[in-house]
């Protein structure tokens, strides 16, 4: 046991003496939270818009006021000539134009068809999608208030559940957690293990009475501890800086995070068992882990928008399931009974990675 504790202590010394790994371990997560939270946000604020109001009714005026009253949108101008609508968009004065039909008020009360049209500047598709969603919500709200008897209508095409304000913090926190855990646990673990091989330290570690599992666990535990610190960091920042809700059980969230942590660590060990140099390990981890985690897990791009092949591929990426679990617990507040499928897949993947790693770990230097 003393042997083991000293091993872990030594590993911490390595980490704290290497400024580069410190930056990756603690700097990167914070930089990412800030980048995703503030700079790369899809959230919209003070978006300028124009109105082409054919109805000129009280109802239409109330709707315009309602939209203008939010933090999201600022009424820039009224358009009276329909030919000028496009000009307003192309000149970048406004991001969208709200077109209200002449029979808007009657239409809202009776007919099935939409009486409101949105002309969106879709050069930034994510923002355009968000704007549409916001406007839809506002109009739906408006319809409920103004015409309570008319019932739900096709006026609103997209119904927004769980994230009615389409706050991007809700989306990026789970993804970022998956990404940072993959980065620290899998990426750093694979590098730290191959480092021993590359620098020749493994040669003496192998010729010692240390058992392979002791070497691996001893090297991995410090990164597990640091990952836990990072999980806490992200959750706290998410909650207190970005107002991320936690509707489900905190305990379940932590347990699932540990499962994913274990999964990432075993992936890191797996990579290191195939590679002998840090560079190769780094490339494999980058191309094989970090990129898919970032691009194919639903973190940045919705899985449903991907080609079928990539959709299948996303199912073997552990982060995909972890993100689903996190969103479920944090936003929907659901319990374990709804997450059995994802949890089982994660657990099975973890067992598979550990099994291969154990089989592949070499107690010698040659094959």
């Amino acid at each position, binding site marked *: 046991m*003393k*042997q083991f504790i*000293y*091993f872990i202590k*030594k590993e911490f*010394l*390595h980490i704290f*003496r*290497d400024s580069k790994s410190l930056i990756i371990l603690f700097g990167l997560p914070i930089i990412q939270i800030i980048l995703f939270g503030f700079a790369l946000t899809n959230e919209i604020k003070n978006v300028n818009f124009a109105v082409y109001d054919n109805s000129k009714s009280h109802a239409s005026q109330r709707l315009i006021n309602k939209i203008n009253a939010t933090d999201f949108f600022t009424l820039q101008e009224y358009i009276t000539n329909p030919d000028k609508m496009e000009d307003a968009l192309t000149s970048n004065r406004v991001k969208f134009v709200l077109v209200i039909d002449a029979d808007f008020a009657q239409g809202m009360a009776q007919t099935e068809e939409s009486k409101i049209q949105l002309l969106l500047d879709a050069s930034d598709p994510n923002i355009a999608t968000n704007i549409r969603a916001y406007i839809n919500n506002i109009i739906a709200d408006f319809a409920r208030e103004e015409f309570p008897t008319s019932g739900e209508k096709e006026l609103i095409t997209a119904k927004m559940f769980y994230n009615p304000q389409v706050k991007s913090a809700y989306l990026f926190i789970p993804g970022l957690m998956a990404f940072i855990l993959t980065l620290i646990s899998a990426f750093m673990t694979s590098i730290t293990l191959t480092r021993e091989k590359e*620098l*020749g*330290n493994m*040669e*003496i*570690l*192998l*010729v*010692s*009475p*240390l058992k392979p599992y002791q070497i691996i666990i001893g090297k991995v535990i410090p990164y597990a501890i640091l990952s836990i610190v990072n999980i806490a960091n992200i959750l706290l920042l998410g909650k207190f800086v970005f107002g991320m809700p936690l509707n489900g059980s905190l305990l379940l969230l932590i347990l699932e995070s540990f499962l994913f942590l274990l999964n990432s660590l075993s992936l890191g060990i797996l990579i290191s068992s195939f590679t002998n140099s840090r560079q190769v390990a780094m490339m494999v981890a980058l191309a094989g882990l970090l990129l898919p985690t970032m691009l194919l897990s639903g973190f940045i791009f919705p899985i449903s928008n991907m080609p079928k092949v990539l959709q299948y591929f996303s199912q073997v990426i552990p982060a995909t399931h972890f993100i689903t679990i996190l969103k479920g617990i944090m936003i929907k507040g659901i319990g374990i009974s709804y997450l059995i499928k994802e949890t089982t897949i994660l657990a099975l993947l973890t067992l598979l990675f550990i099994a291969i790693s154990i089989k592949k770990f070499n*107690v*010698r*230097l*040659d094959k």
Partner: protein
Amino acid sequence: MSQLIKIENLIYAYGSKIAVDLPYLEVEEGDLFGLIGADGAGKTSLFRLIASLYKPKQGKITVFGQDTMKDYAKIRQFTGYMPGKFSLYEDLTIKENMNFFASVFETTVAENYSLIEEIYVMLKPFENRKAGKLSGGMKQKLALCSALIHKPKLLLLDEPTTGVDPASRQEFWEMLLKLQKRGITIIVSTPYLDEAQMCNKLALMHKSKIIAQGNTSDFITNFPKSLFHIKASKMRDLIHILRDFPHCHSAYSFGDAIHYQDKRNLTERVIQQELDAYLKKAGFSEVRIDKQIPSIEDAFIDYLHGQENDN
């Protein structure tokens, strides 16, 4: 003395390239066994095979009766290994490295301090310096301390003095002799033949094979032919002219002279006279031909020479 290492029909290869081909070798307990050979002769591979880090492609190695294939865990308990490349942690200090390796072997520096004391006192003033910042000699002392920390019965040292200054090399070998007296069996490889003379057993490795082995003293007493130490004017041409002599077995530069062996079994005086006449005829002056007592280096050059002629 009992046999500590026994190697039988050992073959090791990298792909199709044979690295070690060793029909038989044994090392006895208490030996200071020197392994000599040029770079690429297969010394490091042999060390790794004995340390159970490589799997033999064929044959068997036993260390204290334990098979390196099946019982590698036991072998690793009593073996101290110092790889050719500095393999301690360069970002840890001397003290941290020592404590770490002591803990790996479930012991403490204090427990076995008597064994390493003599070397460690030299490192002590720099205890808090990082290993990466040490000189070659200091690194090697640290690596030796760390290989000794668990009181191994067998010490494997792969070119420990390569890249180390002469004074440190001297100290290092004195240390090895002391360790040998304490009953630790040591196998050490070196490219320096003057050092090799300190070993009581020697093996010469050449192109994956051990071409000569035995007691160090026997190498010299068994030297087959008489050897001459030759100096003359125009030293630069001397070696070529000597090699052109029809009865020349071998001629090679040795320090500032040429060492010469004759093919024939004639008396020394006859050879001396013939050579003197031959060289003077070839235009050399100040010719000095003396009998030379063979050193270990002469013995090995002779073995290598025989090896090349066989091929």
